[in-house]
């Protein structure tokens, strides 16, 4: 079947099997370029390695029909390269040594990006609980969670400081 999506800001036409998952179409094609940041882990919605944004909301692409994306916007890490918030999160993960094999990293980054974006829109700063909740769908087998949480906390604190400075300048 034909599926028309806005992938990372650009209109695309996919040819996909009716029973295909969003994960399989993004990662395996047949259309190029393949979004290899979207990892295949459990394929049961548990590990979060396949997390992408569907209309700005995080979804596990392994339990979402590719056809569900028809007429909608899909965002992967590839589409957020160079985005200042994403860049800050990536740098923080590296700085806090939160990346070992890195298989979980794209999914974690999508989840954290969504959280911080949502908080920024609401003018709030996520606390420890909100960060852990946002990461609750992302399993990491190497690093664990303390370092990713610390990295996100650091970025959230920076954003809050920037927000205060901007408010002060106005």
């Amino acid at each position, binding site marked *: 079947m034909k599926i028309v999506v806005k992938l990372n800001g650009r209109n695309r036409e996919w040819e996909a099997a009716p029973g295909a998952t969003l994960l399989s179409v993004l990662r395996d094609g047949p259309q190029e370029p393949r979004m290899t940041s979207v990892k295949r882990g459990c394929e049961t919605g548990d590990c979060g390695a396949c997390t992408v944004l569907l209309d700005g909301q995080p979804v*596990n692409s392994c339990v979402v029909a590719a*056809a569900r994306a028809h007429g909608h916007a899909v965002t992967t890490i590839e589409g957020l390269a160079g985005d200042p918030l994403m860049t800050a999160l990536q740098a923080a993960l590296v700085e806090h040594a939160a990346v070992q094999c890195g298989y979980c990293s794209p999914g974690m980054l999508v989840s954290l990006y969504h959280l911080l974006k949502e908080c920024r829109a609401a003018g709030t700063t996520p606390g420890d609980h909100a960060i852990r909740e946002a990461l*609750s769908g992302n399993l990491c087998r190497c690093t664990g969670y303390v370092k990713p949480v610390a990295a996100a906390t650091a970025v959230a604190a920076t954003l809050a400081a920037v927000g205060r400075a901007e408010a002060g300048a106005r």
Partner: protein
Amino acid sequence: MWELKEYRIAGSIGEAVAMMRRGPGKGVYIAGGTDLFLFPPACDYVVDINHVGMSNIARTPDGDLFIGAAATLHDIATCPLVTGFAGGLVSAAAAHCGNRPVRTTATIGGNLCNALPSADLAPALLALDAVCYIADEDSQESLPLEEFFTGPRRTVLDGRLLVGIALSAASGGWRAAARRLTRSAEDIALVQVAVALEIDGDRVGAARIALGSVAPVPMRAMLAEALVEGELIANLDPDRLADAAAIAAGECEPIDDHRASAEYRREMVGVLTRRLLASVLAGSTDTSPGTDNEGGAA
């Protein structure tokens, strides 16, 4: 890979049912797909119901709450209309399901139509007198949620579409609390209990005790409810609550499995029912299920 011949996208409720009935072969509705992709059923086509206008959440003029079948668990967890209804019992149940990305697409309709004995929204909805609205090609039906489930993974639907759920605003307002015991936070529940009481001055009006994971279908403990319903609050002393809890424990039909024994589940129905009744009567509306593991309940 799920071998489907066709993915049909419906644009209205009528069209969805017509697409389902049209054949050829066997079809299933798909909402979030979070249950379907885990265990894809053998079928020829699916009918996508995410674009038929069933995602709405609304309060009616008389205070009832309507939740469309395609409303997502994230919307239900966060919508002020739901968090503000009956102490947030239903939104707390939704907030507990799965993880954030799953809740983006998973729907209330899928949770109920999948009809697992452990469906996490079922006890909260049963405790608030939920009514199901069901559509066929040229007819509509409504029935109480307790008549909706006919067995594990079986419902009354038979090709019809669940359109939504309505919860009645008890005249005095519901006071409610719920608990869910699990081995770990992400595991299927061992025992779920939800209690809702309508407090009418110095009396209990309607009383609801709903149980999950302890019978072939989510159920109400109606004999236990009868012991509490209409009673003066002053008469509901600890002995009376213990009696009601013991009756609830007798009403359920749990099984032994690798998660827990039937005996343990039955015992916990009693313990949780007693504690929840006491905490609701004491005015607490604790609806944070699932954060406790065994032993830490209520």
